């Protein structure tokens, strides 16, 4: 009797697993099927490397180079701002902070992770954008730079949490050994603990990249959303926001082209996930 229950439950669990796999397959196939026709019609080269996006003009142009470059620049910028902050926060929390600070900062970090992206966007729009305008004396603060800052803050939780976990997992005896040999606390931390937790820290950065590339709502509200080639203090549109901002009214080839953008974005995310798997599985981390 209990064996039958076991079998039934196993079947149920398998079904749950299959639902997840099914969703991924469905999305993949749907994106490929609906994304290919526009690329065919526009031409892959013109689509990927065209510099002008004018989807509703009388003679429409569908070049997504501005979006691709903006997404790449924006993510790189967010990583450049966010990774140092996140990394050093993680080092402090894992190796130097007293217990109560570690607990309370950890709580704040997880709170930061659970703030909805629209709230980031709203605060960015009402506080950050005017601040950027004042600070740099430019006409309008809705720029690539503002988007980078918002993204940098948004990726902090993933960088901090994953890095702290990796640093915590470094065996105590490594550090005790280094200290016993006369290394200072800082030397121990950066020469022993950090290298030992390397794969976890790299994974945290890749996770951050994934979050930054895929974010739509928050950047839509602070980046100005005009399809220009990216400039640090210019109005820009990301891959994600290109889809989100035009989808509601799009029709015909324009709609198909938006699916193609989504496909490009999907390829980006796939590559990032692939790298993440390589890093976490291939690394010789101290787990």
């Amino acid at each position, binding site marked *: 009797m209990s064996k039958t229950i076991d079998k039934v439950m196993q079947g149920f669990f398998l079904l749950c697993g299959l639902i997840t796999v099914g969703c991924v397959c469905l999305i993949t196939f749907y994106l490929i099927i609906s994304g290919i026709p526009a690329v065919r019609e526009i031409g892959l080269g013109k689509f990927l490397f065209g510099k002008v996006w004018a989807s509703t003009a009388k003679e429409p142009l569908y070049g997504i180079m501005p979006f691709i470059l903006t997404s790449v620049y924006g993510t790189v910028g967010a990583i450049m701002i966010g990774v140092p902050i996140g990394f050093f926060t993680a080092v402090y929390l894992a190796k130097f902070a007293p217990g109560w600070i570690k607990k309370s900062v950890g709580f704040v970090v997880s709170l930061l992770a659970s703030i909805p992206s629209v709230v980031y966007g709203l605060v960015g*729009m009402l506080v950050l954008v005017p601040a950027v305008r004042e600070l740099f004396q430019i006409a*309008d603060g809705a720029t690539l730079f503002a988007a980078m800052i918002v993204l940098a803050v948004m990726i902090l939780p993933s960088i901090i949490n994953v890095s702290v976990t990796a640093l915590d997992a470094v065996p105590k005896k490594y550090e005790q050994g280094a200290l016993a040999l006369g290394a200072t606390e800082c030397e121990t931390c950066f020469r022993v603990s950090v290298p030992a937790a390397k794969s976890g820290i790299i994974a945290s950065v890749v996770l951050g990249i994934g979050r930054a590339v895929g974010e739509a709502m928050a950047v839509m509200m602070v980046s100005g*959303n005009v*399809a220009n080639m990216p400039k640090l203090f210019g*109005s820009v549109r990301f891959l994600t926001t290109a889809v989100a*901002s035009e989808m509601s009214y799009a029709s015909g080839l324009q709609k198909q082209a938006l699916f193609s953008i989504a496909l490009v974005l999907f390829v980006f995310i796939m590559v990032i996930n692939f790298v993440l798997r390589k890093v976490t599985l291939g690394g010789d981390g101290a787990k």
Partner: protein
Amino acid sequence: MMKRKILTAVMAVSMAVSCLTGCGSSGGAKGTVTTDGSTSMEKVIGALGESFMERNQGINFSYNPTGSGSGISAVANGTCDIGLSSRNLKEEEKADGLQETVLAIDGIAVIVNKSNEVADLSLEQIAGIYTGEITNWSELGGSDGEIVVIGRESGSGTRDGFESITGTEDACVLRQELTSTGDVIATVKSNENAIGYASLASVDDAVLTLSVGGVLPSSETVLDGSYAIQRPFVLVTKEGKELSAAAKAFFDYALSEEAKEVIEGAGVVPAN
């Protein structure tokens, strides 16, 4: 086991009963109303359709957002009951036996920050700003400051209306392209050099509404046509062709007193 079966049976019966009573309570005219045309009218037609179906449960209302041009030809071909157009009919279209009934008028307000000293612009000046010919407020009698031009995303009905009236289609040089009226107002409110446009009904005191050619937008100036940035929302029907009972009911409802509130709720000025 037996108990569960009984329970299921009871639930099935009660569901069937509630279904029957649900059907029974409708009544009045039955059938379908098909409308086709302007994407700008989506909001007002959607609201009207919804409240209409609430009142007439047997009638099925449908709206196909294809654009004013295809909506007009759909009525001419008889593929829909009522066509929707966000421009007046052309003479040749009227000559083809089409009839226009203005349902509402869409006024688009041009807004700037409250600290802006400019209070009036001509249609040409507005077009100049949006095409990038005029880039500084000092050229318009304001204080020195680069104009921050705010527009809406392509496909937006407000953008389509604004650009067609100011003659700036495909020529706008925007600094920000925002996806909602609220975003436009919030941005203009926070940037003293910004200019934007928004549906008249959604503009509030947070921003300064400009007069265009000396006329401030209001329900009255939109209705009497003195405010320039406006366009009609038109119901197009075919002359001499009797509307079906359901379509007639919708047509009458859309022009009735009780529909006025719905039309205003959608952000436009009722025409009658």
